[in-house]
Every structure is written in structure tokens, then in C-alpha cells.
């Protein structure tokens, strides 16, 4: 599917900026296409950032301040799309979610079961947080240290999950498609665990940071 540049008439694959005249193109692009990246899950973060800044400069509305309204509009839309795409792909977990979406899969579909060990952890830790919340200020030192140790454990679990996510990304990138169902299931499983753990860590951090009313 080719796209014709409204400014110079050049034919090209849909992309953010015309290859021939450098004008912003009014194209509907997915996040990978917006950043002119191949559809691969494994992304080098520094290359991604560099690409984002480079394209950001080239599509920037300041460059087209005196252009036709149609071009200015495309520059604005392109800038917004670029930023949205960058944010979506930058965080591996959100990239994974977006990938599922691109592949017509839904994270929550047939996926309401919290893995039992993880549910156990959630309830245990939340119990600890409630205790800490209830303990009088000044007498909560031991509890606080327990929760802080828990926080470290949870952080380590998150690191493991992120490694597992990277591994799954690589598997998907190398796959010939024959094991698609398994890859989808695995990706959903890791992403769900990350979501539950992230919420729990957020709650722990809030509790540890909240100043206790005397």
C-alpha cells in the first residue's frame, strides 16, 4: 500500500515524513511504523531514543510554521503520534501489551485467574501494610524493616519477570509462527504477573513513603 505525498507527489510506503521532500505525511501508522522500526519486540532503548529525537526534530511544527495549513496539521498530528508511539514502545511491559493488541489478542481474555503463589504474596504483603498502617508512629520500626525487606524481594521478583519478558520477546522475534499460541499464552502470563506485582509494589511504596499522622 503506497502513499502519495500531498506536497511533492512522491510515492512511498506510509511513513511519518516524506522521503523525497521532507514534508510531514498525513499517514495512519502503528507505533513501529511511526518510528520507522521493524515490527520486532526486541528494541535497543538507546537506539529508540535516538530515533525518537531525530524524527521529532524533522517533523517538528516549528519547521513548518509558514507552510500550508494542511502541512502544519500533518506536522502536529505526526508529532503527537511520534510521542505516543515512543511512550508505548519505551517501556517493555507496555510494548508487550501493545504487541498483543496489534496481534488481535486481549490480555484479560480468559485470564482472570491470579497465579495462586502471586495471590498469596499479594494478600500477605497487603496484610503487612495494614499492620504497618495501624501501628503507632515511633513503635513501627520492626514492622517497617519487615516491609522494606519485602520491598526488596518484590523488586527482585520484578527484575526476574522483566528478564523473562525480554526472553519471550526474543523468542517471538525468532519464531516462524508455528508456536504462536504458546507465545501468546506465555506473553500474557508474564505481562499479567508484571501488572499484579507493579500494583503491589506501588502500594508498598506509598505506604513506606506516607508520613504517619502522629
Amino acid at each position, binding site marked *: 500500500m503506497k502513499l502519495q505525498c500531498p506536497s511533492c507527489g512522491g510515492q512511498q510506503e506510509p511513513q511519518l515524513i516524506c522521503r523525497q521532500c521532507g514534508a510531514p505525511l498525513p499517514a495512519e501508522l502503528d507505533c513501529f511504523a511511526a518510528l520507522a522500526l521493524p515490527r520486532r519486540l526486541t528494541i535497543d532503548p538507546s537506539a529508540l531514543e535516538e530515533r525518537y529525537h531525530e524524527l521529532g526534530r524533522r517533523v517538528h511544527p516549528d519547521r513548518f510554521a509558514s507552510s500550508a495549513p494542511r502541512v502544519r496539521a500533518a506536522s502536529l498530528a505526526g508529532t503527537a503520534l511520534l510521542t505516543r508511539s515512543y511512550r508505548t514502545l519505551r517501556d517493555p511491559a507496555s510494548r508487550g501489551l501493545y504487541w498483543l493488541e496489534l496481534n488481535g489478542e486481549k*490480555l*484479560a481474555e480468559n485470564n482472570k485467574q*491470579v497465579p495462586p503463589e502471586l*495471590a498469596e504474596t499479594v494478600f500477605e504483603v*497487603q496484610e503487612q501494610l495494614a499492620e504497618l498502617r495501624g501501628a503507632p508512629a515511633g513503635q513501627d520500626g520492626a514492622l517497617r524493616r519487615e516491609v522494606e525487606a519485602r520491598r526488596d524481594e518484590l523488586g527482585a521478583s520484578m527484575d526476574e519477570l522483566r528478564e523473562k519478558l525480554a526472553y519471550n520477546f526474543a523468542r517471538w522475534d525468532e519464531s516462524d509462527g508455528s508456536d504462536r499460541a504458546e507465545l501468546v499464552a506465555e506473553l500474557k502470563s508474564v505481562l499479567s504477573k508484571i*501488572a*499484579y506485582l507493579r*500494583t*503491589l509494589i506501588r502500594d508498598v511504596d506509598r505506604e513506606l513513603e506516607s508520613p504517619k499522622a502522629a
Partner: protein
Amino acid sequence: MAYSDKVLDHYNNPRNVGSFSKEDPDIGTGVVGAPECGDVMKLQLKINDRGVIEDARFKTFGCGSAIASSSYVTELVKGKHIDEAIAIKNTVIVKELNLPPVKIHCSVLAEDAIKAAIGDWKKRKGVAQADDPKGEPSRAATGSGE
């Protein structure tokens, strides 16, 4: 986004927070989660031999709407027969709490929790009373759509 008064009421004064002993044979426990936002909900139902829900407890870790949905559900199911409770649709919760579209998944979670808790109770009773003649799960089982 503003929460409705009913959500705030349930959030600030949640009904039936807590848990029953998992060892109690009359208790059905359902733990469900919303992987999109990381919310986790535990619903426990105390169900008598006639299949009537006598009491309910919940613990939900998540947003205000998820807490309100589960709190409301504990009130809603009390006194109902499990066949009736398992047919409860999330739309009832949406309507009662006036949930906005982005929070509809919280009500779905509460609906799923009811089904999971009753399923757990049936499983436990099924093992304990394998030859119970009045066990008629087929009709109720059709209620678990989605």
C-alpha cells in the same frame, strides 16, 4: 474522573471487609484479578446446605471502583440462592454504582468473583457429597458466560 456518591460511600465505608477461614467447608473462596490494572479481589461466601448464601466477606486491592464493586456485591448476594447469585450480571453493579465506561472491568471482576467463589464451594461440596441427589449444577453452569 469523579467517583459517584455510591462508589465513595462503599469506598469509605466498605461492607463486609475481611475473610473467613478457608478450612470451613461451608466457605467458597474466589480470587480473581484484572491483569490490565493489577487489581486483585478475594470474595468469600458462606453457603448453607440448601445453597443459600448466608454471609460474605471480601478483600480487594485496587481502585475505588473495584473496592466499591466488591463491597456492593457482598450485600447483593446475601440471602440469595447460589443459582440466583451466579446469574448476577455486572450490568447490575454498573447501574447501582453508576460506574463510568473505563471502570466497567471492575464490575466484571466482581461478577467473576461471585462465579469463582460459588464454583469453589461446589467443587468442595462435590467432593464431600458426591452422591448428593439435589446437586443440579447444570442450570447454574450456563450462567458463566463471557
